[in-house]
C-alpha cells in the first residue's frame, strides 16, 4: 500500500488575484471529483500532505506560509499553483511582493498558468504525490538515524520564571532545518556507503510539468 493513495491538500492564498483560487476550488468540485484519487481538501496543515500555494508571496503572508509549512508533519510537498506562485508573475515587480512561493518555503512542483487549469493542477498534485513517496522513504531512513526524535518532555512546557524568554522558546521547534542537519551529520557518521542523506527539499523536482 502506498501513502500516495490519500494525498490530503491544504490550500493557501498568498496574495493572488483569486483567479487561481477559483480554479483550485473548481478542482475540488464534483465535476473533477478528485476524491477518486483520495484527494481531500483538509484546510488544516496538521492533516495535510500537499500544500497548494496560489499567488505571489508578500511580506504579510510570508510568515503565515512559513508557519503553515512548519506545522505540516513530514513527509510533505509544496505545489506552487499558477504563475504568480511560481515566480511572482505579473505582480513580480510590485513593491510588496517578495516573489514566488519558493522565496519562503521549498517548492517541489511548479504548475504555471494564468489562471492555472484544473487539469494542470490535478497533474501537478499527482506529480507531487510521487515526490511524497520518495520523501517518505527518506524520512524512514532519517527516522532510523534519529531525525525528529525530539524528547518533548524536555521542551519548555514546565518552566520557572528564570527560564522565561519568549524570543527563544519556540526556536527549537521551528528550526526544522537545524534538526535535519543534526540528523544528517549523525547519518554521515553512522552510515558507510549508502543511503544518501536527505537532500534539501527545494531541489527535488523540475520546473514546469504542466499539461
Amino acid at each position, binding site marked *: *500500500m502506498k*501513502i500516495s*493513495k*490519500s494525498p*490530503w491538500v491544504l490550500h493557501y492564498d498568498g496574495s493572488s488575484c483569486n483567479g487561481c483560487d477559483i480554479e483550485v476550488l473548481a478542482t475540488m468540485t*464534483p465535476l473533477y*471529483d478528485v*476524491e*477518486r*484519487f*483520495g484527494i*481531500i*481538501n*483538509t*484546510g*488544516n496543515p*496538521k*492533516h495535510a*500532505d500537499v500544500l497548494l500555494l496560489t499567488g505571489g508571496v508578500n511580506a504579510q503572508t510570508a510568515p503565515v506560509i512559513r508557519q503553515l509549512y512548519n*506545522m505540516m*508533519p*513530514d*513527509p510533505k510537498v509544496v505545489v506552487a499553483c499558477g504563475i504568480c506562485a511560481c515566480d511572482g508573475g505579473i505582480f513580480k515587480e510590485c513593491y510588496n511582493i517578495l516573489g514566488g512561493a519558493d522565496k519562503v518555503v521549498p517548492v517541489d512542483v511548479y504548475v504555471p498558468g494564468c489562471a492555472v487549469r484544473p487539469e494542470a493542477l490535478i497533474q501537478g498534485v499527482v506529480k507531487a504525490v510521487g515526490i511524497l513517496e520518495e520523501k*517518505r522513504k527518506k*524520512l524512514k531512513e532519517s527516522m532510523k538515524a534519529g531525525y*525528529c526524535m525530539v524528547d*518533548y*518532555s524536555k521542551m519548555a*512546557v514546565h518552566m520557572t520564571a528564570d527560564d522565561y524568554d519568549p524570543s527563544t522558546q519556540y526556536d527549537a521547534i521551528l528550526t526544522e532545518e537545524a534538526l535535519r542537519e543534526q540528523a544528517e551529520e549523525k547519518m554521515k557518521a553512522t552510515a558507510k556507503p549508502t543511503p544518501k542523506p536527505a537532500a534539501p527539499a527545494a531541489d527535488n523536482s523540475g520546473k514546469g510539468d504542466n499539461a
Partner: protein
Amino acid sequence: MTVSIIIKAILYVLLAPFIGGLLSGIDRVFSARMQGRQGPPVFQPFYDVFKLMNKQTTVVNGIQVLFVTAYLIFTIFTGALFFAGGDMLLVFFALSMSEVMMVLAAFSTNGPYSIMGAQRELLQMMCYEPMTLLVAIGFYYANGSFMVNDLIHASVPAIVQIPGFFIGFVFILIIKLRKSPFDLSTSHHMHQEMVKGLTTDLSGGNLARVEIAEWYDTVLMMGIVGMFFITNNPISILWAVIACSVVFFLETLIDNLFPRVKYITMLKVTWAVILVFAGTNLLILNVLK
C-alpha cells in the same frame, strides 16, 4: 462460557476495524454517488489511515498522546464489553468515559479550534447521553435484563416493544456517527468553519488512532442497532444485518440532505425527539407492565 466470552471479545477487537473501515468507505462511496460523482475506492479509509501511520506525528504537548491512546483503548474496551455480552449500562458508561478522554485530548492543546470542537463535542454528548442510557433501560423493560448475553436470547425481537427507543436511537446515531445536521464538533467533510474541530491539532499517528477508534465505535453502534432485532432464532441475525444496512444508508442519506444546524437547535430537537419517542414508549411500557 468464559472461553466463548473471550473469543467473542477477541473477534470483535480483530474484525471490527475492518468492518468499520469498510463501512466508512461505503459511506463515502454512497455520498459520492448521491452527489453524482464516482467517489473514492471503498478501501480509501484504509489508505488514509495507513498514510497517517506513516507520517510523522506532531504534538502540541505531551499529554495529548496519552489521552488519544486512552480514547482508543477505552473505545475498544467498550466494544469488546458489548460484543462479549456485558452489561448494557456499563457499556454506555464506559463509552462516555472514552469520549471524555477524546475531549480532554482536544482541550489539552489549547488551540482555539480544538477547544471549540471539544465544547461542541461535550454538548453533543449531553444531547445523546440520555438516549444511550434509555436504550439500556428500554432493553431491560423489554427483556428483563441489562446483560447483552441474556438479551440476545429473547423470544420476541425487542423492536416490537420498544420502537420509540429505536427511533430515538437512530436519531442520536446522526450525532454519534458525526453526520451532517449534527456534525458540530468535527465532521467527515473538511475545510469548514471549525477546521476539523476536535481533531484539528492531532496529526499522523494520533489522528490514525482516532480514526480507528471511530471505526470501532461505528461497529459498536451498528451492533446496538442489531440488538433491537436479535432473537434466539438464528434467522434473526439476517434481519439484524438488514436493519443495520438500512439504518446506515439512512444516516448517509440524512448526511447528504441536511445542512448543519446551530447547537441550540440540536439540543432542543434531540431532547424533544428523545422525550417524545423514547419517553412515551417508556410510559406505555410502564403502564402495560
